């Protein structure tokens, strides 16, 4: 076996760069076809409901538990730092703003990528390897509309909903720790929070973030399943790619969005 020379490595690098561009193109065409292509069979709504259940409702457990714990930890940490400056009453606004602006959308998106995203990729990859997608095609049903589209729309709708629930549960958990355990006065906790949290800048921006994340995470998850090698090794590789790419994309987009929304410097 000849060892790889420098030229070989450069050639490989160029090859992967071109491959990456091809994948971007393929995934965009995939997305457009799935979302806006004409459907040949009905029953789209039923499929959507089914996917909303398996993607959204089934992720509730992890989102609620994580939200609660994160809210509680935020209150604990926030309290310990703020009380040094005699501003323990600001704990409420700190917890709320952190959750609404950042942790709600981002952590929910990361959890979603890990739980629902990887499940989507594995499911579709499995369907590909057992030739179910080919069967659909031969029966005359477009697999992109029948399989991919409902899952895409389900993801776009579920993630923002999950992010909102995460924030609410987190704030509630934080309030429980701050008020009942750490002794922050409940009046100032909520009043300070209400005074500093604005619906437009904080809540809505958080929702916008989670909508953007929903789009990216679901797109990556469904495409990776569709595009994978139809072998068990290929499926496991694709699932890993989904989690890694989706997580990195969420974090990168979060930076850009935060700079756009809150960085009026």
């Amino acid at each position, binding site marked *: 076996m000849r060892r790889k020379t420098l030229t070989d490595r450069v050639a490989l690098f160029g090859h992967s760069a071109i491959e990456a561009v091809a994948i971007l193109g393929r995934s965009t065409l995939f997305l457009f076809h799935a979302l806006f292509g004409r459907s040949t069979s009905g029953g789209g709504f039923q499929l959507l409901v089914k996917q909303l*259940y398996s993607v959204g409702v089934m992720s509730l457990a992890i989102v609620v538990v994580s939200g609660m714990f994160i809210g509680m930890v935020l209150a604990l940490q926030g309290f310990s730092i703020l009380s040094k400056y005699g501003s323990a009453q600001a704990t409420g606004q700190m917890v709320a703003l952190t959750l609404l602006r950042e942790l709600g959308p981002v952590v929910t998106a990361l959890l979603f990528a890990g739980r629902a995203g990887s499940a989507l990729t594995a499911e579709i990859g499995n369907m590909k390897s057992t030739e179910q997608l080919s069967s659909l095609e031969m029966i005359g049903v477009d697999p992109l509309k029948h399989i991919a589209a409902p899952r895409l729309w389900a993801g776009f709708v579920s993630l923002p*909903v999950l992010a909102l*629930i995460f924030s609410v549960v987190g*704030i509630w958990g934080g309030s429980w720790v701050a008020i009942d355990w750490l002794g922050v006065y409940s009046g100032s906790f*909520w009043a300070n929070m209400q*005074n500093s*949290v604005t619906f437009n800048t904080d*809540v809505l921006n958080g929702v916008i973030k989670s909508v953007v994340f929903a789009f990216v995470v679901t797109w990556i998850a469904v495409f990776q399943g569709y595009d994978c090698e139809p072998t068990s090794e290929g499926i496991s590789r694709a699932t890993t790619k989904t989690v890694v790419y989706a997580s990195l994309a969420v974090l990168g987009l979060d930076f850009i969005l935060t700079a756009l929304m809150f960085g009026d410097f």
Partner: protein
Amino acid sequence: MQNRTLEVGVGLFLLAGILALLLLALRVSGLAATPSADTYKLYAYFDNIAGLTVRAKVSMAGVTIGKVTAIDLDRDNFTGRVTMQVDKKVDNLPIDSTASILTAGLLGEKYVGISVGGDDKLLTNGGTIHDTQSSLVLEDLIGKFLLNSVGKDAKDAK
């Protein structure tokens, strides 16, 4: 299969999301604030509005009666002009009332506090508060302190 459970589950899920949004809107961000229809406009000119931002509250005796809606520079007098929307129910402000830019708490934000004057004539929509006190700037405060202590030393030395 269990179609019914599916649909109910999804419906509840979406409802929970809407509920969360409402909760956030009302309880967390205090969205149920003064609707702008029931307010009237007042202006105030300040030498220095440092730290005051749009949407800061306008209060009297500690009670919020409105909010700041715009801050611009008056080109002719080189002062800052603050536009405020005040609750219509507070329609008995005398025209010699004072507007000051105050700080809420140690880390707090700036807000506009209004104290009453004694005149019979009242402020109406579009009226201007002439008696104003600017925001406290830290450097001026230190300067004043130093000046005072230098003056005192000088006096003692005499």
